[in-house]
């Protein structure tokens, strides 16, 4: 595993490198999983957020490095995914050129899949063709003469059914023999205007001394203005002139330079496939009748809503028992470890409240992540995901998102962590970025306790359950109502990424395999724990230390003394002494809670909260609310426990606690211009709720955004949302005070 983890592309080991190439939805990843088993390593390509999957293939005694390149339709490098493919195939940016390309083709749609192969024939890298999903092709009445295809392409052809593992051993053998006896794809005959244009381009660049391109590279520059090879040319003006004149000569021969490449390849493939593919009669696809139902205006919408309801319910409710179990496990571990460390209170608190609570705080996300990816794998493997995206695309297209944003945003209503992870299903980088940034605006379940506490305490008793319900609903809506226009703003004015056409290929309906689904769940779960979990744990320990230190012992002494003076007024000396000896006595508990509260007030975070309280003053927050908000960074719901401690009630309070509610009702300003006035007036309460709805007071979300995008975007998202939340709270408080 170690050797594997250290084998990025730039390696010099003797192991041959084999790359899997193919369109999306061809079963490429399934085949990769089948070939490597669990001996695989998922990371990002250096410097970009494109997922890089590599693994080890063992055949007989030898090992081969296998690389699963991102799925792409052609070599036109528009997205980051496609650029990576081009970089690897071109051996650029320090990537090792693969020794063998294994093309995974969907046998049900051979011609379209062969376009990529045809384009790659220029590269001269040894190749091997895999016809996957041969069973589905057979069912659709498509017969393929693999031998003839192999003869015409000049490379071996293997048939497989990846989902059932058919043809795997033949494929492994073919890979080994292709490495021993490599054969390259036969090149396509280019029309003269193209070869001439290419020649002029190469000569021109060479003369100007800016760059030397091979024929294959020149072709890419000619057909693709964003080509990675064009980026490498220093003299951009000269390049543009040369490309323009080549395009002119292409246009003069009657071709559209924009589509000429595909047109020429497809014409070539038409003749190449003559006699290779035989379709018996008109293709009657099984999915036509299912589509008629699932994409129906009425029934399709109803089915979509039911499916999404089940997904959401399972995330929101069915995950609860598992999450409770993890909570129980966390406190059991704390209770178990705690006595062993009682001699060193600082270490005891670090281990129990920092580390174990932090680990628990990481694991708590697992049930929702696993459940969501179970459904995502299920929906994608059956072929429904593309249909769902088709149905709702219009709802999102106006603001730069697309139909595939629906599931991530819906999941974010349960929790933004799995929601952000689910954006991996969006292939358009711009839409994915926007969806990730919008996901934390959805009101996750961790915000609910705050709403329930405040609505239950201040709104329901005054205005009745109907208004209370309405406010709760509005709180769930406010994030979404702001997020979509924000997405539009961001997309229209700020994001400089090229918009990609939203084109969905409707895959055949398939029966999903459990093996595949579990692989996806395992892969995502593991990735979350290893890559985001460490950061979340670090946040947890950091916030713990800020809440624990400096822990001056004089705080405890002073609190105890003032408490004893107070108690002496109502109780006799003997009563107090007895009570203090008995840890369970009411007096002792009150004292413990006061000490905890005093420690928080004196902690670094408490001091910081007091220091920044003026910033939150325009929203009507006192220092206690401010500290509560700040300390909830590791996990939003922690604010309830923190408020419990700050208000001398101990950490064991929940959103339904009557004690906490009555304390909040009676809380008054102790200083400043509002001295004596109640802290929690209606505008303040609404302001706090809006603040919580809009802020990204969640370390785990910051961590996962940093993992999925980068730290710059995570910081942008965090500060942007906090600023927006502050603005919202201030507006509500100030307007509310005027009314």
């Amino acid at each position: 595993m170690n050797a594997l983890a250290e084998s990025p592309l730039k390696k010099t080991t003797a192991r041959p490198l084999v790359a899997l190439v193919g369109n999306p939805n061809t079963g490429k990843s399934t085949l990769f999983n089948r070939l490597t088993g669990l001996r695989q390593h998922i990371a990002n390509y250096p410097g970009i957020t494109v997922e890089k999957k590599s693994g080890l293939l063992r055949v007989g005694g030898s090992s081969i490095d296998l690389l699963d390149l991102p799925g792409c339709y052609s070599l036109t490098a528009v997205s980051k995914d496609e650029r990576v493919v081009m970089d690897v195939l071109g051996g650029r940016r320090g990537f090792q050129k693969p020794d063998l390309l294994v093309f995974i083709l969907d046998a049900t749609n051979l011609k379209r899949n062969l376009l990529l192969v045809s384009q790659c024939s220029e590269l001269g890298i040894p190749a091997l063709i895999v016809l996957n999903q041969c069973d589905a092709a057979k069912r659709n009445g498509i017969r393929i003469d693999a031998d003839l295809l192999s003869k015409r392409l000049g490379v071996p052809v293997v048939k497989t059914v990846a989902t059932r593992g058919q043809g795997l051993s033949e494929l492994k053998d073919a890979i080994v023999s292709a490495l021993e006896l490599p054969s390259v794809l036969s090149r396509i005959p280019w029309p003269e205007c193209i070869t001439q244009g290419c020649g002029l381009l190469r000569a021109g660049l060479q003369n100007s001394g800016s760059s030397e391109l091979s024929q294959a590279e020149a072709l890419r520059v000619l057909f693709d203005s964003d080509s990675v090879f064009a980026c490498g040319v220093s003299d951009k003006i000269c390049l543009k002139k040369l490309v323009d004149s080549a395009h002119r000569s292409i246009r003069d021969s009657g071709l559209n330079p924009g589509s000429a490449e595909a047109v020429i390849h497809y014409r070539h493939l038409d003749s190449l496939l003559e006699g290779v593919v035989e379709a018996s009669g008109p293709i009657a696809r099984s999915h036509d009748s299912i589509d008629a139902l699932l994409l129906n205006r009425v029934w399709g919408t109803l089915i979509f809503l039911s499916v999404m309801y089940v997904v959401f319910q399972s995330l929101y409710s069915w995950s609860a028992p598992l999450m409770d179990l993890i909570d129980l496990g966390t406190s059991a571990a704390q209770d178990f470890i705690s006595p062993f460390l009682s001699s060193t209170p600082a270490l005891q608190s670090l281990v129990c409240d920092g580390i174990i609570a932090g680990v628990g705080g990481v694991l708590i996300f697992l049930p929702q992540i696993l459940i969501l990816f179970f459904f995502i794998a299920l929906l994608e493997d059956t072929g429904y995901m593309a249909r769902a995206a088709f149905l709702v695309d219009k709802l999102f297209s106006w603001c730069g998102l697309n139909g595939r944003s629906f599931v991530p945003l819906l999941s974010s209503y349960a929790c933004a962590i799995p929601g952000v992870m689910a954006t991996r299903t969006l292939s358009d980088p711009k839409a994915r970025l926007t969806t990730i940034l919008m996901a934390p605006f959805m009101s996750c379940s961790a915000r609910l306790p705050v709403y329930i506490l405040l609505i239950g305490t201040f709104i329901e008793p005054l205005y009745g359950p109907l208004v209370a319900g309405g406010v709760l609903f509005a709180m769930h809506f406010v994030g979404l109502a702001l997020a979509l226009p924000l997405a539009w703003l961001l997309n229209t004015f700020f994001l400089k990424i090229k918009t990609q056409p939203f084109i969905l290929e409707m895959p055949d309906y398939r029966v999903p395999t459990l093996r595949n689904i579990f692989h996806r769940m395992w892969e995502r779960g593991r990735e979350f724990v290893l890559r985001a979990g460490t950061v979340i744990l670090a946040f947890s320990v950091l916030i713990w230390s800020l809440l624990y230190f400096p822990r001056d012992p004089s705080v405890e002494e002073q609190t105890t003394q003032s408490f004893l003076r107070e108690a002496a007024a109502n109780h006799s000396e003997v009563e107090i002494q007895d009570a203090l000896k008995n840890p369970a006595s009411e007096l002792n508990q009150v004292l413990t809670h006061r000490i905890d509260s005093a420690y928080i007030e004196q902690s670094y975070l408490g001091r910081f909260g007091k220091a920044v309280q003026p910033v939150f003053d325009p929203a009507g927050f006192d220092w206690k609310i401010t500290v509560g908000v700040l300390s909830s960074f590791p996990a939003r719901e922690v604010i309830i426990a923190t408020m419990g401690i700050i208000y001398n009630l101990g950490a064991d309070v929940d959103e339904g606690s009557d004690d906490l509610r009555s304390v909040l009702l009676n809380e008054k300003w102790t200083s400043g211009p509002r001295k004596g006035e109640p802290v929690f007036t209606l505008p303040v309460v609404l302001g706090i709720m809006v603040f919580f709805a809009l802020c990204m007071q969640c370390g785990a979300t910051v961590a996962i955004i940093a993992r999925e995008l980068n730290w710059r975007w995570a910081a942008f998202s965090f500060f942007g949302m906090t600023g927006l939340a502050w603005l919202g709270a201030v507006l509500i408080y100030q307007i509310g005070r005027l009314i």
Partner: protein
Amino acid sequence: MLGVMLGEFESQNGIAACTRTLDSLRVGDCAEIEGIATDCDRANRMASLGFIPGRMVRVTRFAPLGDPISVQLEGQEISLRRAEARIIRVKGGAE
């Protein structure tokens, strides 16, 4: 001329008045692709997906909200937004 041989006629001044674009077809309509209107990078992408001159395309349905549309091309069901369908020129009538 090569363009004639490959079945593609490129009009120099963009969309000719007599041709229609894919987004103007109704559900059930069948038409032959004539070309792609612009030579922007979207043209390359659409062509790569199989929207090339001479092929038949049939509109199978619209999404519940009217956009995107779903078409059948070479036995493949492909969904695209009207904005993309607009750059594909078609000829031939309704069926």
